[in-house]
């Protein structure tokens, strides 16, 4: 710590930081553009000028750029100094010289960092008499809008896109006042994190194109703290509603989880909530029916029938728990294909009973040697990939510390590091999006990858069993990986369920445990498939195949399916048998799908923005999401549907929750594993009111005036402290309940500065969420002994593996119009040599036979896939009903293709 003097007042500051960071952390307002807490300083915009004085006697001082000046002990600075203030106003005058006169039609207006900073400096009118330079815009895809005239050349976009997110197709072109930020030609931005440009850009050059289609100012949104449901990372988001539809998603800072950034699937996948495929009424036999009749029917089915319940990895803990209580724990089944389910359970066991803890995403960024086993992290858990991209810098930037270059001095550090990267080893069946920063990549079938894992573990600790009959090549790779992990300060092993291989999970655990045994603080992280896979697994439901059997045995006649399209979970034959055998099928879901089409009774379940609940992410952190708006129609949370306040004739005492707090404490009482979820967010009674609407929210007396001029009372929220109004208690909201970031003078998302203890650090009051498992040091564990046999390619029986796509593999985001434009067509990917043996060329059709399902898919020839392995896109129709990995046959359909040519 250092003492620095600000306006002659002594203040304590972190001497490893720059002045801008320190001043903002201490709560001072100082305008800036190019600096970003996650990107560091480059001193490009000259906006954060302050006066620095040599000592107490120095009255003249000199102007310095705060973001480029270390906060050394004894530094004396003045923000208020008239010369510095004039300098800042002059800088902004220069930046605004070519700014187009278009704030009224700019999507950034009202949350524009440039507006805020201009007001802060006091600059108000343009003195430049000559013409404004203009640019033409580019088409950047369905997600982002480009309006280049608004640019102030701060360079943040390219620094984020290229340096931070590893993109290649956005760059700065030309020179002096004609610098242009864009692609070399029109086209969809390739990087999976491009949506962050809308937040990183301090003005309206890059804006959310999905928001533009139903544009609403930030001050008019009714917002709530939420958690992304499109993958298992559990990124914190803030969702905004206007006129009854969900309008947008922005980042909600959580230091431990997502930090400042979101992936494009999470940011733009929200539009499924507004889909015209939404179920908004109770359906009985396919026809809309009244609530009372539907509930009477459900009550009758529950009373007279033998019910089983099928849960869902994309439903909240509360909803799954409600179903489990309704049908009884013995009749509650996981709505996940058995293969995936067994791998998920294995991963959970390894995390619970092993010595290696699961890291938060923030800890992943600070790991300095990483081994990825069998995951394409970018397409499965995108934000983890963004963190991994930073982790490869951990080792090289140590050189900067040795040379006394402060780490915040971004350009100098990057200049020093150049292309040097720390160890990141990726072993996977196919090319991954992180390969460009990997030290070494290895391609093999899942069993081969698991064997590599066991070999690494054996190389680290000879007590770990060795994998027999390894090729010398793999042996050498394993040796190099072991050496890199051994010499690291905090090594990390990542695996997951994508390959559907239990051995792979065990191999990853083996490596992490071997490291732990040698005294390394190794961590182990798994990519779970869906937003609440881990939470569902912690509830210990029975496997799905047992549900199929129960129905066939006749021990059950009614099935209640919670937020789950079963046709994505099992073969068409199995699922159809289940749904046809069952005398009564009840489904709760958001969107119409094949399963709801077969249901006798359908209840409209609220989507994440319309309900409250808790999700458990891949770190096993339970996080609460809150309702942003009361949904239209009869839509309500599944756990509200499944309570005795709605269902008549339920015995007293069962499912007797009324509010969120009731059901959360019921879960905590019933399940010791999930007891900590009570602390995931404060309960309703602990707090006063927290406003969902900003205090400038407009149209209160006019929004519904077309229906009736007599304004209704605002709806009351019985589930949380959040209010559907702009009225708030005097206290700032606790971190888990911050609906949006705003502070006087800071309308943009950069106002998060005002909510952090220290800029870039945790939120005041601690990061939201609570970890469900905390590793104890002395855990009894032992190595797995069974190493899998080597993979043998077989031209009669191919190994078909799922290939994940950030856009398309996830069920809900695929329904969002912007995302659906980016979903690839179904294909079968196979090795070019294999294809030549089959006699198939690229683009020709291949017949894929798995069991009794047959698909004709386009061949995509690749060099990365191991021989005997074929890739099918995960979750993309028509192959979204296959549970992969599977064994199957491939045969060419050449005759059909060439039939016309001849």
């Amino acid at each position, binding site marked *: 710590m250092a003492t620095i003097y600000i306006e002659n007042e002594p203040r304590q500051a972190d001497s490893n930081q720059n002045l801008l960071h320190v001043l903002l952390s201490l709560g001072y307002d100082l305008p800036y553009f190019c600096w970003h807490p996650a990107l560091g300083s480059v001193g490009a915009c000259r906006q954060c000028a302050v006066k620095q004085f040599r000592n107490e006697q120095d009255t003249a001082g000199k102007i310095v750029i705060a973001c480029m000046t270390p906060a050394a002990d004894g530094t004396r600075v003045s923000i208020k100094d008239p010369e510095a203030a004039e300098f800042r106003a002059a800088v902004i005058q220069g930046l605004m010289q070519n700014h187009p006169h*278009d704030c009224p039609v700019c999507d950034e207006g009202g949350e524009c960092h440039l507006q805020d900073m201009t007001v802060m400096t006091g600059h108000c009118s343009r003195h430049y008499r000559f013409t404004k330079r203009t640019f033409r815009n580019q088409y950047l895809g369905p997600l982002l809008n480009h309006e280049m*005239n608004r640019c102030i050349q701060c360079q943040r976009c390219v620094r984020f896109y290229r340096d931070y997110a590893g993109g290649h197709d956005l760059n700065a072109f030309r020179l002096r006042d004609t610098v*242009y930020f864009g692609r070399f030609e029109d086209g969809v931005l390739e990087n999976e994190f491009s949506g962050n440009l809308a937040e990183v850009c301090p003005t309206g050059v890059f804006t959310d194109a999905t928001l533009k289609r139903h544009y609403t100012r930030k001050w*008019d949104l009714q917002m709530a703290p939420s958690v992304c449901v499109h993958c298992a990372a559990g990124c914190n988001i803030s969702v905004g509603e206007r006129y009854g539809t969900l309008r947008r998603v922005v980042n909600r800072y959580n230091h431990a989880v997502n930090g400042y950034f979101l992936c494009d699937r999470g940011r733009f996948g929200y539009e499924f909530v507004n889909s015209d495929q939404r179920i908004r009424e109770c359906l009985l036999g396919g026809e809309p029916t009244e609530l009372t009749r539907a509930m009477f029917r459900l009550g009758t089915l529950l009373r007279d029938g033998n019910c089983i319940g099928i849960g869902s990895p994309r439903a909240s803990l509360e909803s799954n728990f409600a179903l489990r209580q309704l049908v009884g724990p013995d009749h509650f089944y996981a709505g996940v294909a058995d293969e995936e389910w067994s791998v998920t359970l294995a991963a959970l066991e390894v995390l619970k009973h092993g010595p290696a803890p699961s890291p938060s995403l923030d800890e992943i960024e600070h790991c300095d040697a990483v081994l990825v086993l069998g995951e394409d992290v970018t397409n499965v858990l995108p934000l983890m990939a963004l963190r991994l991209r930073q982790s490869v810098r951990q080792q090289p930037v140590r050189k900067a510390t040795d040379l006394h270059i402060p780490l915040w001095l971004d350009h100098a550090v990057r200049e020093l590091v150049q292309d040097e990267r720390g160890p990141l080893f990726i072993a996977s069946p196919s090319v991954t999006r992180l390969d460009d920063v990997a030290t070494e990549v290895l391609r093999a079938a899942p069993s081969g990858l698991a064997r590599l894992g066991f070999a690494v573990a054996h190389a680290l600790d000879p007590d770990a069993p060795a994998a027999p009959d390894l090729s010398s090549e793999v042996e050498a790779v394993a040796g190099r990986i072991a050496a890199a992990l051994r010499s690291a300060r905090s090594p990390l092993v990542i695996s997951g369920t994508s390959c559907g291989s239990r051995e792979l999970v065990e191999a990853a655990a083996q490596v992490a445990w071997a490291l732990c045994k040698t005294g390394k603080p190794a961590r182990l992280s798994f990519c779970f498939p869906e937003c609440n896979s881990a939470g569902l697994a912690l509830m210990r439901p029975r496997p799905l195949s047992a549900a199929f059997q129960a129905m066939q045995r006749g021990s059950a006649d009614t099935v209640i399916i919670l937020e789950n399209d079963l046709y994505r979970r099992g073969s068409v034959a199995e699922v159809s048998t289940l749904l046809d055998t069952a005398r009564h099928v009840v489904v709760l879901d958001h969107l119409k799908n094949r399963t709801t089409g077969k249901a006798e009774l359908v209840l409209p379940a609220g989507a994440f923005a319309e309900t409250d609940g808790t999700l458990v992410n891949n770190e096993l952190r339970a996080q609460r999401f809150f309702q942003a708006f009361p949904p239209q129609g009869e839509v309500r949370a599944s756990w509200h549907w499944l309570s005795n306040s709605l269902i008549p004739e339920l015995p007293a005492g069962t499912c007797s929750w009324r509010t969120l707090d009731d059901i959360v404490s019921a879960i905590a009482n019933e399940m010791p594993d999930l007891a900590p979820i009570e602390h995931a967010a404060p309960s309703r009674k602990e707090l006063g009111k927290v406003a969902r609407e900003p205090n400038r929210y*407009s149209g209160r*007396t006019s929004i519904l*005036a077309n229906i009736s001029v007599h304004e209704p009372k605002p709806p009351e929220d019985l589930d949380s402290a959040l209010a559907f109004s702009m009225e708030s208690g005097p206290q700032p909201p606790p971190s888990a309940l911050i609906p949006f970031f705003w502070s006087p003078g800071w309308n943009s998302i950069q106002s998060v500065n005002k909510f952090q203890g220290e800029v870039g650090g945790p939120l005041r009051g601690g990061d939201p969420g609570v970890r469900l498992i905390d590793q104890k040091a002395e855990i009894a564990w032992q190595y797995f002994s069974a190493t899998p046999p080597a993979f043998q390619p077989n031209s009669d029986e191919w190994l078909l593996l799922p290939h994940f796509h950030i856009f398309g593999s996830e069920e809900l985001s695929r329904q969002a119009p912007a995302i659906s434009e980016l979903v690839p067509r179904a294909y079968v990917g196979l090795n070019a040599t294999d294809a030549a043996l089959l006699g198939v060329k690229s683009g020709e059709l291949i017949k894929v036979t798995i069991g009794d399902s047959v698909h004709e898919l386009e061949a995509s020839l690749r060099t990365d896939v191991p021989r005997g392995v074929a890739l099918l896109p995960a979750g993309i129709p028509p192959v979204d009903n296959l549970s992969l990995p599977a064994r199957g046959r491939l045969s060419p359909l050449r005759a059909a293709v060439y039939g016309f040519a001849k």
Partner: protein
Amino acid sequence: MFSLLRSLWEVFKHAFHPRVTIQYPEQKPYLAPRYRGRIILTRDPDGGERCVACNLCAVACPVDCIALQATEDEHGRRYPEFFRINFSRCIFCGFCEEACPTYAIQLTPDFEMAEYNRQNLVYEKKDLLIDGPGKYPDYNFWRVAGVAIGGKEKGQAENEAAPVDLHSLLP
């Protein structure tokens, strides 16, 4: 006694003053052009809708009686999809007119809006939009703003240089 007589005289004198009271509704009062009465939405000199749906009137409104939704035509020109003023709440403060960056929303010298049914005081865009530019005959926001709309490309607004040629090698 004197003061009593003086007061009587003063009152008597007023009998011969010109009348201030106007025989409304037979006789209409003079209202200044800047009188703050019924709110209208105007068109720009080219006949296009002036309102760009920026929401500034709505946010300035102290009684929150304006609600609107922005939308865009195929060329990027923004306009309100609907625009609603609940005149039963309006206090005719004129903040909306002051906030409007395009002179679209204007208050007019007309106050005769009384209704028997309060619901009739809810005005939609069809009730608000007039066919002229109102008090400001010349201003056209789109001629000044640096965004392209139908009929006006980049670089064609007032005071704008031609767009930068990105492929030029000249410095």
